[in-house]
C-alpha cells in the first residue's frame, strides 16, 4: 500500500517551486512602486497560464500530494526566510503577522463553512472578541499571556454558542441571518458603551512570554531587528499549529463526518451521524480559532477598536476563504496575500477594497466557484493514490 519508489525529481521540483515562490513573495512585499506591483501581477498571471498549458501545475500537485511533509517543511522555511529578509521592516513584518493571523481565523471559517456547511458571517466579530479578551486580560489580570490567548479563544467559542440554535437549522439562511445580526450587534454594542473603550477602543499590552516582553525586541549584536520579528515568528507558529490541526481534522473521521453532514443530511442521519453535534463542533472550533488569532493580533498591533471588526471585515475574511478555494486550506495564504497585502501595495485600490473583493467573489461564484486552488478529494495518508 505504501509507495516507496519516490523519484528524486519530485523532491527537486518541490524545492525549485518553493524557492521561486519565496522569491516571488519577497519581490512582492519589497515592491515600492505600483508599477512594479503591476508587473509582478502580470508575471504571475502569465506564469500560471503557461504552467497550466505545460501541465506543470498537475505535476506540482502530484508532487505535493506525495510528499506532504517536504512541502510543509519547505513552506515553513520559505516563511522563515521571508521573516529574516524583512527583519528590519516594521511594516512588512506587521503585514506578515496580519496575513498569518487572519489566515488562522480563516482556517476556523473553513472548518465551519468549507467542511460543515455552516455559514458564519461574523468571523471578524469573533476575531474581535479575541482581541478584546486579550486587551482586558492582559491589562487587568496576571494571567500568563500564552494562557490569555487560549482563554480568548475559549471566550469567543462560548459567546458563539449563544447563536447555536438557529445555526443548527438546515437551511443556511438562518445561520446567515443570525450571524450577520450578531456581527453588527457586537460592533454596535462595543461602540455605544464606554466599558470597552467605546469607538476609540482599548490598548492591548504587548506579549510577554516567561517574563520576556516581545515589545522589547530581540537583540542580536550588529543586526538591527524590528521587535515585530518575534511576533512574526509567534504568528507563524500559531498558524502552523492550527494548520496542522485542521489538516489532521480534514483527514480524519471528523472531517469525513462533517463533509457528509454538509453534502446530504438526510442520508447522513440514516447512517447514524449526529447532525447537530457536528455542526456545533464545527461552529465552536472555528470560533475558537478565530478568537485565538484575534487575541494574538491584538497584542501584535497594540490596540483594538470596533472599527476593525465590521460586517465588511467579516465579508473580507469570507472572500479569502472563497478566493483561495473553499475547503482547501492550502489556498488561504495566497488568498490572504491578495486580499490583505495587495491593497497596501496598490494604494489606489485601498479605498475600493471592499467593493473590489466583493465583486471578485461574485465573479468567482459565477465562473469558477471552486476558487483559485480547488479542493481535492480526501487522501487520508500519503501513498494512497492508488495507481
Amino acid at each position, binding site marked *: *500500500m505504501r509507495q516507496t519508489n519516490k523519484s528524486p525529481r519530485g523532491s527537486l521540483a518541490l524545492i525549485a517551486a518553493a524557492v521561486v515562490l519565496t522569491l516571488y513573495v519577497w519581490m512582492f512585499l519589497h515592491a515600492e512602486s505600483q508599477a512594479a506591483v503591476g508587473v509582478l501581477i502580470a508575471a504571475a498571471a502569465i506564469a500560471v497560464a503557461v504552467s497550466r498549458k505545460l501541465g506543470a501545475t498537475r505535476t506540482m500537485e502530484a508532487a505535493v500530494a506525495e510528499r506532504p511533509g517536504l512541502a510543509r517543511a519547505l513552506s515553513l522555511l520559505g516563511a522563515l526566510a521571508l521573516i529574516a529578509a524583512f527583519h528590519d521592516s516594521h511594516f512588512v513584518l506587521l503585514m506578515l503577522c496580519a496575513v498569518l493571523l487572519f489566515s488562522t481565523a480563516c482556517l476556523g471559517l473553513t472548518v465551519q463553512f468549507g467542511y460543515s456547511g455552516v455559514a458564519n458571517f461574523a468571523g471578524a466579530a469573533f476575531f474581535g472578541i479575541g482581541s478584546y479578551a486579550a486587551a482586558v486580560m492582559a491589562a487587568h489580570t496576571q494571567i500568563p499571556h500564552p494562557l490569555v490567548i487560549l482563554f480568548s479563544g475559549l471566550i469567543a467559542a462560548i459567546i458563539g454558542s449563544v447563536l447555536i440554535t438557529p445555526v443548527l437549522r438546515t437551511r443556511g439562511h438562518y445561520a446567515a441571518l443570525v450571524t450577520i445580526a450578531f456581527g453588527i450587534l457586537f460592533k454596535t454594542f462595543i461602540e455605544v458603551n464606554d466599558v470597552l473603550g467605546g469607538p476609540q477602543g482599548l490598548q492591548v499590552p504587548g506579549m510577554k512570554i516567561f517574563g520576556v516582553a516581545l515589545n522589547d525586541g530581540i537583540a542580536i549584536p550588529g543586526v538591527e531587528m524590528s521587535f515585530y520579528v518575534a511576533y512574526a515568528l509567534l504568528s507563524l507558529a500559531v498558524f502552523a499549529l492550527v494548520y496542522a*490541526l485542521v489538516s*489532521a*481534522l480534514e483527514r*480524519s*473521521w*471528523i472531517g*469525513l*463526518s462533517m*463533509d*457528509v453532514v454538509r*453534502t*446530504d443530511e*438526510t*442520508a*447522513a*442521519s*440514516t*447512517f*447514524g*451521524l*449526529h447532525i447537530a453535534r457536528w455542526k456545533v*463542533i464545527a461552529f465552536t472550533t472555528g470560533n475558537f480559532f478565530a478568537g485565538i488569532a484575534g487575541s494574538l493580533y491584538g497584542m501584535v498591533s497594540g490596540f483594538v477598536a470596533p472599527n476593525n471588526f465590521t460586517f465588511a471585515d467579516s465579508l473580507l475574511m469570507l472572500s479569502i476563504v472563497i478566493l483561495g478555494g473553499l475547503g482547501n486550506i492550502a489556498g488561504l495564504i495566497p488568498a490572504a496575500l491578495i486580499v490583505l497585502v495587495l491593497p497596501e501595495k496598490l494604494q489606489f485600490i485601498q479605498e475600493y477594497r471592499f467593493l473590489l473583493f466583493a465583486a471578485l467573489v461574485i465573479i468567482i461564484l459565477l465562473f469558477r466557484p471552486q476558487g483559485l486552488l480547488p479542493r481535492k*478529494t*480526501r*487522501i*487520508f*495518508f500519503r501513498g*494512497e*493514490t*492508488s*495507481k
Partner: protein
Amino acid sequence: MSPMNLIEVENLTMRFGGLTALDALNMSVRQGEILGLLGPNGSGKTTFFNVLTGLYRASSGSIRLDGADVIGKTPQEIYRSGVARTFQRSRLSLSLTVFDNIVIGDYQHMQHGLLFNLLRRKAFRAEYEQYVEKVRDLLKIFSPPLVSRLFEPVETFTMIDRRRIEVCRALMSQPRLLLLDEPSAGMTHDETDELMQDILQVRDRMNKLSVVLIEHEMNVIERVTERCVVLNYGRKIAEGSYAEITADANVQTAYLGEAV
C-alpha cells in the same frame, strides 16, 4: 408477537395533509428472510421505508423492531438498532471519494473523539487501514474495477456503480435489516442478476441478515425472494410466495386495471 418476526407493522398510517400514503398497514418481516415489497407507483413502499428509518413520523400505528416501537425514534437510533438502507434516488456525496461514501456506513463503530482523530494519528491510521481493507473486500464482490479507484470522487462513476456503492455503504455496518429501494433501477438484466448474487453472497457471510427489497423487476423478485407483500394505496392487498401473489386477482387489478 412471533419470535420469528424481526419487524411487526400494526395499523401503520401516514398522512401528508390530505394524502394518505399508508393506510392502516399490517405486515411483518420474518427473521432472516428476503421479503419482496411490491406495488404500483405511489402505493407507499418508499414511504414505508422512510417511516421505518425514522425520516417520517407515522400519523398512527406502530412498527416494532424486536418488540420495541420504532415510531418516534430518530433515524440515528434506528440505524444503531441495525437497520440500513439504500435510496430510490441515489443519495451519495458526489464530491467525496468512493471510500468516503462507503466507510461512513459503519459510522457507529468508528472512533470520533477529537483526541483520537487529531493527536493519536498512529492509532487512527491503524483503524483507517482496517477500514480500507473492509471496503476493498466489499468492493471486490460488488465491483472489482472500483478497488483500484477507491479514492476517486463518486461523481466520476456511472449510475450503476453508484448504486453498487450505495449497497456497499449499507452493508458496511453489518446490519440486521437491509432495506433496498429499487436497487436495480437503470440496470440491465445481467447487471441486476449480478447485483442480487453479490448481495446473497454477502448475506451468507452475515448471520441472519433480513432483507426487504422494493423492486419492479419481476424476474428478480421471483428468483431472489422467499415471500412477497403487495401494497396498493398504502394497504396490503396480497401476501405470499411469488407464484401466489402473481395469481392473485387483486394484484392483477392493481397493476393492470379492471378486466373489461
